[in-house]
């Protein structure tokens, strides 16, 4: 009996060894990836990004396109900005009240002026860089939406997760409008570490079904874990259709985990001769400390 049992154990060991060896052979000989030749070099282009500050100032960030091998999510943000910022440009914004030339701030940022933006009016941005040429864009200032009511609280899923639940409502402006909601956790410790791809929560709302009417909903910020004492910023913005489509495209492709299995995307832009977006919208921002 003992001998039979021992023989069985030996056979099992041998069998396992053969099987494990087979599996090691099967998965062990992965070939070395090949180098790549002949990839085109990206043509340097001006990139424009804008945002109105609630006190009616506007910030225009001017950068340039750079190579795919020049930076990644782990790169030092400051070093990257130093490399790509455009600081030789003349930036003007022309509206009904005249033309304003923005001041050059630091790291490719231009602004420093109070411009009386008027909702519904069109403004033209022109950028002229000695090295990268001229680009322009036109956009309309969107009316500023206001939260009629909003609250933020913690939601316990019953498992290990605690989510932030936002309940809000606002009055839609008559006419076609497109809205963007953002929720961003504000933490002093990792604010700088999270500058590249901060991965904020975004939600888009189209007013086709509630034009000119009050609208409200409740949603949970997923997938993020929150704790009591966390500070979050919730903003509501009325954006242009072009920018809505741009953000929608970004949200649609958040499931594109493997780049060579997804369709290539050239993101749309309203910058003629360049990339990026010229936006003039003023968000309603509310801060909450979650309890």
């Amino acid at each position, binding site marked *: 009996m003992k001998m039979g049992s021992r023989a069985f154990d030996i056979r099992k060991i041998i069998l*396992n060894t053969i*099987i494990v060896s*087979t599996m090691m052979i*099967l998965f062990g*000989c*992965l*070939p*070395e*990836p*090949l*180098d*790549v030749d*002949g*990839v*085109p*070099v*990206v043509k340097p282009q001006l990139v424009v*990004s804008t*945002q109105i500050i609630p006190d009616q100032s506007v910030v225009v*960030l001017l*950068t*340039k*396109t*750079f*190579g*795919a091998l*020049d*930076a*990644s999510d782990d790169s030092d943000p400051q070093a990257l900005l130093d490399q*790509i910022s455009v600081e030789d440009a003349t930036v003007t914004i022309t509206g009904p009240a005249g033309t304003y030339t923005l001041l050059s701030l630091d790291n490719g940022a231009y602004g420093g002026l109070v411009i009386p933006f008027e909702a519904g009016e069109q403004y033209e941005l022109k950028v002229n860089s000695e090295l990268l040429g001229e680009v322009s864009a036109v956009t309309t200032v969107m009316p500023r939406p206001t939260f009629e009511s909003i609250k933020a609280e913690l939601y316990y*899923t*019953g*498992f290990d*997760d605690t989510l932030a639940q936002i309940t809000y409502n606002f009055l839609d402006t008559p006419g076609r409008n497109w809205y963007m909601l*953002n929720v961003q956790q*504000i933490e002093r410790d990792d*604010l700088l570490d999270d500058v*590249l*791809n*901060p991965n*904020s929560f975004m939600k888009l709302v189209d007013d086709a079904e509630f034009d000119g009417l009050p609208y409200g909903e409740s*949603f949970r*910020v*997923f*997938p993020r874990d929150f704790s009591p004492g966390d500070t979050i*910023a919730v903003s509501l913005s009325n954006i242009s259709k072009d920018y809505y489509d741009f953000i929608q*495209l970004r949200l*649609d*492709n958040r*499931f594109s985990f493997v*780049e*060579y*299995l997804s*369709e*290539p*995307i*050239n993101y749309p832009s309203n910058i003629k001769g360049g*990339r*990026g*977006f010229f936006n003039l919208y003023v968000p309603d921002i509310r801060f909450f400390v979650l309890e």
Partner: protein
Amino acid sequence: MLKTLLTYFFLSIAFSCLCQTIVFKGIVRDTLGEKLPLAHLTVLPDSLTTTTDENGQFSIRTSPGEKLIQVTYVGYEVFQQAVLLNSDSILSITLKLKVDQLKEVVIRGQRNTLQEIFESNQTSTNVLTQDEINAIPVLGGEADVIKTLQLLPGTIRGVEGSSDLFVRGGAADQNLVLLDDAPIYNTSHLFGFLSVFNVDVLDRVEAINGGFPASYGGRLSSILDVKTKSNIPDKTHISGDIGLLASRLFIEQPIVKEKASFWIAGRRTYIDQVIRVTGEELPYFFYDLNGKIILKPSANDRIELSHYSGKDLLDLFRDRNNDGDGFLTSYSSGNSTQSLRWSRNLHQNWFSTVSLLRTKYYYDIRNAFEENELVASSDIEDYGTRILIQKDSLFGSGTFKTGIDWTRHQVSPNIINTAGTITEILESSSTAGKVANELAVHFQYEWSPLEKWRVAIGMRGSMAVVGQKQYVNPEPRISTRIALRDDEALKLSYSRMTQYLHRISNSAVSSPTDIWYPVTESIRPQTAHQVALAWQKNFPSQRIFFSAEGYYKTMNQLIGYEEGTNLFLNTDFESSLIQGKGKAYGLELLLRKEAGKFTGWLSYTLSWSWRQFDEINTGQWFPSRYDRRHNGAVVAQYAFHKRWAVSMVWEFISGARFTPIIGQYVVLAPTLTGVDLLPVYSGINEVTLANTHRLDMGIKFKSKPGKKFQWSWFVGVYNGYNRANPIGITIEQDELDGSLRYRQPGLFGLLPFINYGFKF
């Protein structure tokens, strides 16, 4: 006067005897019962000749009297038999293999498929037999129809290891794959690494890439007609194969001698069981089950009932904390087909085939974690019928075929159900189900206007009805063959094809979660025109065949997607579909030897494939993803002993096209707390990946011939020199200095295999 009357009387009898003809028909088989098509039959002393059709049957009109029937077929002894024909007669003829053939290590009973191809009117056709497929070492040592087809000219493969076929510039969904007349919508297991076809059940695989007969339609680029075994054996046969990836078993059993039999075959991978022995879990497996009942109730009737079902299953539960709250992933996909085929010899040389078909493909995905759940499913189910009527010897040596095909497609494209917090980012949605009816009527007449010239002219009228929308398309077909010499022929063909069903799939690689979708009011049928010209030379005594063929194909209403379309879990894909044009042209060379100690082929294809969509690439023409300029293969088997044979495959393919990320830029994040990095892509398919080449080798050792229990060991290696065959371009970070670089990873390196086969 009486003398005159008697003279007239006897003359009239003589004339009536001269005018009286009888029909002499029959079937030609070998000693194993295999039908022999294109066997040459002569009736002496009348000097009438004919050849057997694809079922080994012949029919010839002759005068009554004593005849000498002579039948020849390459590799077989000449058959001669004296017969007395006084009325319509049927004869079953059995040919014996030539004695000297038995000394060579060849596959016994193998048809002269190259002779068939050479004699046929059709261009762009390849035929594979079970033995050829079994002899070729492919991925994991598993004999595979699709992988073998990818080694023939005109057929380009996609990502390494996938079962996609890109034929003459077409997309992967433009190939109609039939298993005993029933369509198969997903031909792959193990996420594309193996096809669904169990080699043990195969009788004949015909791949038509152009010059389509009028009886085929529904796809633009190719027809892959897979027929399973249909002979009634005289005794029980059992065979099987045990390999590293999967094992299979085949059992064939007669029920009534020469009148009824059945066979059943199964295949299953046990990689999950192998991994379990090591203490790990890989809860994935696939299986195939094929079965067939063959009935011959009378000399004129034959009935075959076929079944296939196959499934891929993954059931994974990970509970890292051992608290019962783990992550559940289950995936299931599968095909199921049934076909009933009734063939009948009618009166006056008419022959009919009626087929009833059903096929279904589905997938189900379920992911659950805590209170979150995501369920996605899709399926397509067809019911259909095919009626084909054929008459040989119409108006002399002409052959007339006509028929009608009807298929009802019921499509449930995409249903996504979500529950829990995940609904915040993915809400439940579904794409409306659709019912589409496809109908086609066709006819084709083939005849010889002159002695060395044969022509086939046909028309297929096809129609699709979806809701209130109807599409009707004429599809003319023409093919012709001119015999320059007995061993040399020129062929020319033209086809128009229409496709009413499309696969919604990522352009880079297909997946089991792709969905089939019919035409709608906004999505029009895809169409193609193709012209092919071929010069062929045949060496029948050596069983060597050479073909040089050029083709030009234009395609319209091709399916594409707007930039940035993400098809993953997307139920609103229809709004993102766009339609455009394509063109493809090239030259295909094939040198093939199918008998003797040394067999195999050399193939080479030089091709171009282009696409144009108004909505992308600013409307400019661009190369398609699988525009792979050069595509060649050396496939060889050498039986240096009656028990030993070596085989090798060396394949070379120009790199596929790719659209890599070449740059980046930053924009302010909407929350103003940072900047987002966005990619800049190159022009569409602007970059060519590295060329692919790979060497596979194998050696087979068999038991002594003549033994009742036959066995064989097949040992070899896939990708013998371990070269990466790129699937795309990624950006990697160097571990030493942190710099970024482009790399082209491959999927499979050197993979050894070992298989044990048996039969008795």
